[in-house]
């Protein structure tokens, strides 16, 4: 329990939307249970409207839950002392254009009640870390979206936080900058910091997160370590050049087929089906190029989950 950084117990948020004479209730979060341990990089996934931002707002004490409990570093999220140990990067932030980087960071340092010496040191450190040192005297309206995103990360790291809540940290960044930010996040995790990462970039989450939780319609539908979750979705891929009657013989099997020029790629999760396909291929003189054990990418698993039960998410 001591290394539990974020803990939610049956966390529920119901929004009341007023429409003329009626009040409509919309479920933002439905009994969310999270248990995020120190040093982990937790990827928080879900389609738009799933409840990710609601969760983040509750974790930051900006929104009151309707029911349930939430503990950040063992305390209530509205506890002022606890907030001093958290860094937060929102998805899209408007920064006041009339300020320079130095000025806005001094403002945030002031909110952390840092003394002038520490303020200078920390500003130098974080600007160096995100590569903005040479731009520190520029007004914010002169910045590109990517530079503002770097500034967002700089302000989130200003207090050297134990817990970092990042909402789409690489949004608007070019591929090189995305890699740099990923590197920074991994290094922070190595230092023992806990990262709560909400992102739509599934490949990014797959690359850096140790744990994931997938949210759908306010409910946590999948959670666990990245390795365990992706292991569940193991399957086989058979690449072959089919003979004429091969296709007719395999119709009875529940498999997916992807024709690729003269080759055919067959995917199945069943060991038995795989063996039967190999047997039929041999019997029909089809040429097997290769048999590959595969596991779903996070992207495929995510899409499958979203399509389960309903078609709420299909692109």
């Amino acid at each position, binding site marked *: 329990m001591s290394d539990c950084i974020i803990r939610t117990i049956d966390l529920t948020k119901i929004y009341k939307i007023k429409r003329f004479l009626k009040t409509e209730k919309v479920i933002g979060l439905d009994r969310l249970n999270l248990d995020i341990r120190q040093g982990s990089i937790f990827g928080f996934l879900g389609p738009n409207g799933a409840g990710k931002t609601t969760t983040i707002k509750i974790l*930051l004490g900006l929104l009151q839950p309707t029911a349930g409990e939430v503990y950040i570093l063992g305390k209530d999220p509205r506890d002022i002392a606890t907030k001093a140990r958290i860094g937060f990067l929102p998805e899209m932030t408007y920064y006041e254009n009339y*300020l320079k980087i130095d000025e806005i960071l001094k403002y945030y340092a002031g909110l952390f009640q840092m003394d002038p010496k520490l303020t200078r040191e920390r500003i130098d450190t974080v600007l160096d870390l995100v590569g903005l040192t040479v731009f520190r005297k520029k007004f914010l309206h002169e910045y590109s979206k990517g530079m503002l995103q770097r500034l967002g990360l700089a302000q989130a790291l200003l207090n050297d936080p134990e817990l970092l809540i990042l909402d789409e940290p690489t949004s608007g960044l070019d591929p090189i900058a995305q890699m740099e930010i990923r590197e920074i996040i991994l290094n922070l995790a190595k230092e023992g910091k806990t990262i709560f990462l909400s992102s739509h970039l599934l490949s990014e989450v797959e690359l850096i997160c140790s744990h994931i939780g997938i949210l759908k319609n306010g409910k946590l539908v999948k959670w666990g370590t990245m390795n365990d979750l992706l292991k569940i979705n193991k399957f086989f891929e058979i690449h072959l050049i089919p003979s004429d009657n091969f296709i007719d013989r395999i119709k009875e099997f529940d498999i997916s087929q992807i024709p690729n020029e003269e080759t055919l790629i067959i995917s199945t999760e069943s060991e038995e089906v795989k063996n039967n396909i190999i047997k039929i291929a041999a019997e029909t003189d089809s040429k097997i190029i290769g048999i590959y054990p595969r596991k779903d990418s996070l992207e495929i698993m995510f899409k499958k989950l979203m399509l389960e039960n309903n078609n709420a998410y299909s692109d």
Partner: protein
Amino acid sequence: MLIQIKAIINKYLLKAFRDKLFYALVIAAFIYIYFVSVLKFSNIENTYQFLIDFSISGMFNIGVILALILGVNEVRNEIQTKSIYLSLAKPVDRFTFLLGKLLGILIILLSYVSIIGIELIFLVGKTNPEMITNLIGAILLVFIKLAIISSFIQMLSLFLSPVLNVALTLLISIAGHMSMNYINFILTESYKGRGIFFIKLIKFILPGFEFFSITEALLRFKHISFGYYLEVIIYGILYILFILMISNLIFREKNL
């Protein structure tokens, strides 16, 4: 908490002083008072009455416009643009945030009142030096009135649209200037309904701006005691704190 308030004020002042609108309004007020001062009437008494009346009321009215421009969107904009998330995710109390913003606005208003006040003291004082003490008092009371108005604007901005905020602020400003005697007179002459108690209650709750108007005494060269100034200033400060407490109650429960 003091470091946090200082940070919020600093940021606010940077914004306000880099916003050219502030300078435009100060220059407008400056020119207005200068033109009021050059107008001459048939006798010296009328000239002074006109100068004092129009300068003090002009200073207040332009100050209200400035307070509205400064305050009506200040917290509201931060909520709409979500930049408030960054501030309130830091270890800062919501009350501190409101207080810092309000103090920032008050510093701007104090700068405005000081600049215009110095001009007025210079214009009046060169021919009527005995007026200066009361004139300084009147200018100080204008500032306190503007401070009360600003606290109202901030409170209303937490739950009203800018248009409604402006309308209600102007209404409060007008109603606040009506004296209780005047209200009683209107009620006895024209209204006999059951709502008299509530009208009186509303008037009692609204700021008593009539206590802040000392123009009459100023023109008649009457001595105003230090105690009176002190009472009115304490009343003003307590009133601002009262509004700030209500603002805090609203803001504390607000889901962002």
